[in-house]
């Protein structure tokens, strides 16, 4: 599914003394089934841009189109629906819910869909198997290491079978060995037909051969676009 951005702007705290323009007019497109990485120093607007594409927030002005659908003007209800069926998220801080088991964390995004329990558990276990976590399924999430936590986060992002994966600074909490492994997983995801959007200021990520395209941002605008 093609993602098109047209003159996107994002202003935080509009009309207030602390008004801040985080994105100052970005136009570009992301082709399906590719791995794109947005790089840039901290505060350049990478996270803001990803969250608008992922329907976690809306642009102040401009147009975001997902395939044929304009999502930048959708009411929140429909936005959630798009988000749920189209995007899977992997956050920098993993954002797993403590106190729940590994399995429960993975199933979380599917609860509102009301699938039969058996079907849901089977799907979750299959994912955990695929990511080498089968033996940890019933452990509390707190018992896992950083690398395992991230693989759980990937499983959770995949449970609703999204076409687009969004990962914001996914390797920030991993050492270089784990970062490498993560990029191999990303390669597999692309193989399975998914579109992947990453942000990073880690060369291990944006210089990786897995990445098809690197977009560089600074102060809310696109500086360079390679690939």
């Amino acid at each position, binding site marked *: 599914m093609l993602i098109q951005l047209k003159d996107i702007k994002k202003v935080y705290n509009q009309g207030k003394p602390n008004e801040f323009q985080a994105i100052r007019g970005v136009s570009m497109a992301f082709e399906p089934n590719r791995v794109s990485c947005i790089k840039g120093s901290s505060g350049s607007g990478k*996270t*803001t841009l*990803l*969250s608008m594409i992922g329907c*976690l*927030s*809306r642009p102040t002005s401009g147009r975001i189109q997902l395939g044929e659908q304009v999502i930048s003007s959708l009411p*929140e*209800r429909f936005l*959630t*629906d798009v*988000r*749920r069926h189209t995007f899977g*998220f992997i*956050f*920098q801080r993993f*954002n797993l*819910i*403590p*106190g*729940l088991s590994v399995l*429960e964390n993975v199933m*979380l*995004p*599917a*609860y*509102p*869909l*009301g*699938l*039969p*329990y058996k079907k849901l558990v089977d799907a979750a276990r299959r994912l955990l198997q695929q990511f080498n976590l089968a033996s940890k399924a019933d452990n509390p999430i707190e018992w896992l290491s950083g690398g395992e936590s991230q693989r759980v986060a990937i499983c*959770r*992002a995949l449970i*609703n079978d999204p076409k687009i994966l969004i990962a*914001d600074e996914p390797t920030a909490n991993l050492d270089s060995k784990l970062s490498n492994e993560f990029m191999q997983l990303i390669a597999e995801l692309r193989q399975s037909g998914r579109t992947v959007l990453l942000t990073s200021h880690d060369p291990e990520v944006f210089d990786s051969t897995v990445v098809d395209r690197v977009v560089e941002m600074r102060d809310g605008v696109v500086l360079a676009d390679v690939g």
Partner: protein
Amino acid sequence: MLLFLRKQKYLIDYTLSSLLRRKGKSLGLLAVYTTIVFMLASVTLFTHALRKEAGLMLQASPEIIVQRMQAGRHAMIPADYLQRIGRLRGVMQKAGRLWGYYYDPIVKANYTIMTEGQSDTPLTEIVIGTGIARVQGLDVGDYLTLRSQSGEAFSFQISALLENDSELVSADLLLMSPKAFRRLFSIPEGFYTDLVLSVRNPREVNKVAEKLSQLLPDTRPILRDEVLRTYESVFSWRQGILFVLLLGSVLAFVIFAWDKASGLSAEERREIGILKAVGWETADVMRMKFWEGMVISLTAFLIGYLAAYGHVFFASASLFEPVLKGWSVLYPQFRLTPYVDGLQLATLFFFSVLPYIVATIIPIWRTSIADPDAVMR
């Protein structure tokens, strides 16, 4: 439909596991909540039951009581006053009564002694209320000794226990023969404690009372309606005090709930953000939190209400005794007859569950409508 139900089930499961995850906090909240429901329910159950009992008691009492007053004090009334009343229109029956209070220094309680039966009732037989029986550990066949004003001891054998719909009436009651009563209290034949009149038509009661005052200027008629009104005002006044106290605590509770909710901890806010980011709708989050509130408030309501029921009807509302009852007549421990009605339950529910749900759901709503992009940071 099935989909909807399954979805609710997932949300409820999630809620339950959230509550278990925050065990300490959930239990603390539950404890405070239960205590408040317990207090509210105790007051309501207690005052309702008392009113009910007072109503029962008054139903059985005569429409008009005639007391003789001397120097502003209640005095014995001569039997010939019955003749002096003569035939008043509307009066169905008239009779003299003998009754009095008896202070028992051993259990520090006032009994009410009344008479029953005719002159041929054995002098030494006595019927006692279940309250006295319980306090003194007495049963049928046992002996009870009472002392007259001059210190003379009278021994009675218990022939029966008083069973009654209402223990308020019978708890502290002793029934003996008129003869024994006269001996114990040194009241000569030809005198009564007061006279009672029953009136056929309730609308004629005032007229009869007026005539009585003219016929017997040294007496005072006491109407059942007046007694009822006095009781009502006593109940209402005491209930009022308690309700002011309770209102205070309920308010404190609402503030506490509000504070807990509006000050949603960073952790809870983050959790809501995560749920929304991974695909939950605002409505899903709200439903989940609604179930959470329901689980807590229904549990608290159930436990609090049942505890209050036990407190009022099996433990004699021991916590409220000093506030709600001031009458020495009621001193012997008595047990109220359980009395519950739907309206009362609904009112309680309304005042305990609803404020909590509202107080918690609004701040949660405010948090969950916010864009979930904060979880990215």
